[in-house]
């Protein structure tokens, strides 16, 4: 027994007596759930975690309070490792993390994560969009003009970034020569580089595009959206979303330029890289099954909650695509077994990273 337990004993006993009738209201009655994120406060993940928690609490029996706990650092691994190994699996600590499920297996061994060990609750996919300066080369009036401008400079973060791979693979498929400038410190630094003319093309999440890029880059007439990568269903078919009208889906742009359907390891890689869970809701390994079942069910309820969707639309400017636990686990398994199950695509990605690494 700890000091705190000892001090709390009389209080606990009194509270138990008072709370007896309320126990049946739910496990989370009067409790607080800590939702750990693996990035700093204020960013897109943090905002989405806060939004989701705000509405999720209404669907969980007992309406627990949520506290968002940013745990950045360690290359986004400190928060993930905390959830995987140090957090109590008692249902009071959950994670809302940016996992990089599709790209981590392509990186150094020490930075990989055994996501299959998590108790997955569900996930969110945020489509990505490539955008470009419209004065590149002879100028861009529409996305298909990108094939007529000669060499373009791609701005990015580092070769294993899924955003950078979207730009580089997409342009390669379209037959555009590229020069790659990596090392920008974030999406806004990248946009500033495009505004300054240090680079021509970048990729970002559709939410960031609609908040920052649209207002400061597209609307003032500096550039246009080039293509989006839509989420895909269980069969790998793009989920057509009329809401995503900022730029054509890549497969349509490709058809327009090449007069054929895209295929092959490069296209498969493009779709694979961008079709993992952008954000994943998890519980530490060993969290009781009945709690996980309740959390999964309420997660899905929240994703169809009209108030939540209206809030997301207003604040994140997006209708995200949600995946249930089963579908999310399929994506985790695909990434984990990529080398064995899809060796051609895995080799393509490894070669691509090596090519742009130095």
């Amino acid at each position: 027994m700890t000091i705190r337990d000892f001090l709390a004993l009389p209080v606990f006993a009194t509270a138990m007596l008072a709370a007896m009738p309320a126990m049946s209201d739910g496990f989370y009655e009067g409790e607080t759930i800590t939702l750990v994120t693996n990035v700093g406060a204020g960013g897109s993940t943090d905002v989405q975690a806060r939004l989701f928690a705000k509405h999720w609490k209404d669907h969980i029996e007992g309406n627990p309070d949520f506290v968002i706990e940013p745990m950045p650092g360690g290359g986004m691994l400190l928060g993930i490792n905390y959830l995987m190994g140090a957090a109590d699996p008692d249902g009071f600590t959950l994670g809302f993390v940016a996992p990089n499920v599709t790209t981590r297996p392509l990186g150094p061994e020490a930075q990989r994560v055994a996501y299959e060990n998590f108790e997955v609750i569900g996930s969110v996919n945020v489509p990505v969009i490539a955008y470009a300066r419209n004065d590149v080369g002879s100028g861009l009036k529409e996305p298909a003009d990108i094939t007529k401008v000669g060499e373009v400079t791609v701005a990015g973060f580092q070769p294993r970034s899924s955003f950078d791979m979207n730009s580089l693979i997409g342009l390669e498929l379209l037959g555009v020569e590229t020069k790659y400038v990596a090392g920008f410190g974030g999406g806004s630094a990248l946009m500033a580089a495009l505004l300054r003319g240090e680079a021509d093309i970048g990729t970002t999440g559709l939410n960031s595009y609609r908040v920052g890029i649209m207002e400061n880059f597209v609307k003032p007439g500096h550039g246009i959206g080039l293509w989006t990568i839509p989420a895909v269903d269980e069969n790998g078919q793009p989920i057509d979303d009329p809401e995503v009208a900022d730029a054509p889906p890549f497969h349509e742009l490709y058809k327009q330029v090449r007069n054929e359907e895209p295929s092959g390891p490069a296209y498969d890689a493009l779709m694979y890289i961008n079709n993992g869970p952008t954000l994943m809701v998890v519980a530490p390994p060993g969290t009781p099954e009945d709690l996980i079942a309740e959390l999964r069910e309420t997660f899905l309820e929240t994703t169809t909650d009209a108030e939540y969707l209206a809030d997301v639309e207003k604040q994140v400017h997006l209708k995200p695509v949600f995946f249930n636990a089963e579908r999310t686990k399929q994506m985790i398994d695909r990434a984990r077994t990529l080398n064995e199950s899809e060796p051609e695509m895995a080799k393509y990605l490894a070669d691509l990273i090596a090519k742009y690494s130095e």
Partner: protein
Amino acid sequence: MFDSMIQGLLQVLAWPTSGFLLLGVLAGLWLGAVPGLGGIIGIVVVLPFTFGMEPASAFALLIGLYAVTATSDSIASIMLGIPGTAASQATVMDGHPMAKKGEGARALGAAITVSGFGGIMGGIALALSLPLALPIILAFGSPDYFLLGAFGLLLVGALSGTAIARGLAAAGIGLLLSQIGYPVRSDVPRYWFETYYLIDGLPLVAAVLGLFALPELLGLTVSRSSISSVEASTDMRSGMLQGVRDVVRHRWLAFRCSILGVYIGMLPGPGPSIADWIAYGHTVQSAKDKSQFGKGDVRGVIGPEATNNAVNGGSLIPTVALGIPGSAGMAILLGAFMLQGLSPGPAMLTTHLTTTFTLVWTLILANIIGVAVLFLLVRQLAKAAFIDGRLLVPAVTLFVFMGSWLSQPHIGSWLTLLGMGALGIWMRRAGWPRPPLVLGFVLGPIMENAFVLSMQAFTPMELLSRPMTLGLAALLIVATVFTVRGLRRGEQVQVDRDDTHKDGDPVAGWLSLLLAAVWAGVCVWAFIEAQSFPLSAKIFPEVICGVSFVAALFVLAKDLRGRLAARGATGQIDFRQDIRTLEFLVWYAAIPAVSFVIGQIVALPLFIAAYLKRWGGYGPIAILIYTAAAVAIMVGVYQTLLHVKWLRPMIDLW
């Protein structure tokens, strides 16, 4: 536009927005005054409460809080010699010596007045510059950021004075420490010893707190006295008013440094943690009489304090006008914009102009309220300098340790704090200036990032055809010539030095020699390690190691000559203080060690009780009350309010 300006003011003055502003200001003043907390933590804590608020109320709370931390952070810098936040490091240089001379009230009066002035200037600049922000910000490209960083590094000369070789070596330590973790464009980390904590680099807060706080805590412990070495003056009020008059007398310095702050804030990247050092360097360089810098020259308080408040207005400019955050705090504020459904950008100057003006008024009014509140408290705050130092040390230790823990809840933060603290004590005792280390640590990543991007994005001919780059390069050459000339003429002074020991103290000489030898060895090791890095990741560490190695050899040769010349000198060497220093370090090293076993929430109060008994000689009742207060703060503030995640100990007593 005028209508929007008036509308904005009315919105801020309306209830409940004005109440939220006041609440934010009071919270911000407290967060700034406690070392290790600061505005970023405050924004993170209150952000969830802004859900559902009107934009004016939400920003009154957030910006009111953030704006005044740069005012109250001078309290700890001046009274304790510990930066209240990363933005007030340079204030320590002259502010704390003033407190030691019994001029704490004067230093605080000057700091608070000029902070308010700088903050208001920042607010006005925000209003005036928004339409012009785009061309100004976009005029600076990656190569120009590299040159601006080089300008910052030139300050090593201004801050090191006669100890220039030691200053260069110290800057090298900071630069090399900044190379820990991921390089600019690769996912293969450098110097990380396969420790995830190090993969994103050393945290600034823990490093700066260690470097400055532990040497001061040691000083208070071993000197067994109060901060001030002179008796308390009964007339604190006149000291405070003297500080206000100092600001009026040096109004042009205050004005120049405010403008400097606005522009540094406006350029995304360098941010508040470097602005005060640049202002301090400018203050020293532009002064005719430099002899009192580092000893308690009020100009050394006025310059950085004007700048670090003006930075806030400056960094709001790119945040609001372009959605490009000017600092880490602004990056979080950008999240608040999203939660309010606002998209920073040109629309903030058209559709949302009234909201923009509420930000401007909030910034201005927060600074005015902050100054007014602090002036009511100055006399009480200044009395802290005359309290028994051993009564202050346990409380400050608690805040410093918890501050570094908050920056990243990992045992690595405490080890960084202790490691940097030990290094700070060693450097201070050996006569090595610490500010160049901080400069190197902050500027290293900015310069490397700009360098690597420039090398990829531009050909040499393209670089040579950029007017801004050429202009900055020419200015840099001129500034370098002036700095070197000043150093050769002996015009510069070493602002960070330990005056408690006599010149020619043999222990200091040997410690400097040893530090130079160790550092030269580290440079060799780090250079060899760098050979396995990719090209873009090894250029910087190689250059840093090369230059720093040569500087260390210079120090080594000079110290060796000094030791040889002192051979045969008579006199007993007094090791007593150095033995007490080692004992002090062992006590502090025990905090993480004991925490591992029984947890922080027991270990820190245990340290406090033991310290009060061993070093302070206090009785059981005083110890009990003090320790109970410490537990209450840990549970009430850190655990309940700030949701701190504690280390999981071997024996969980809490």
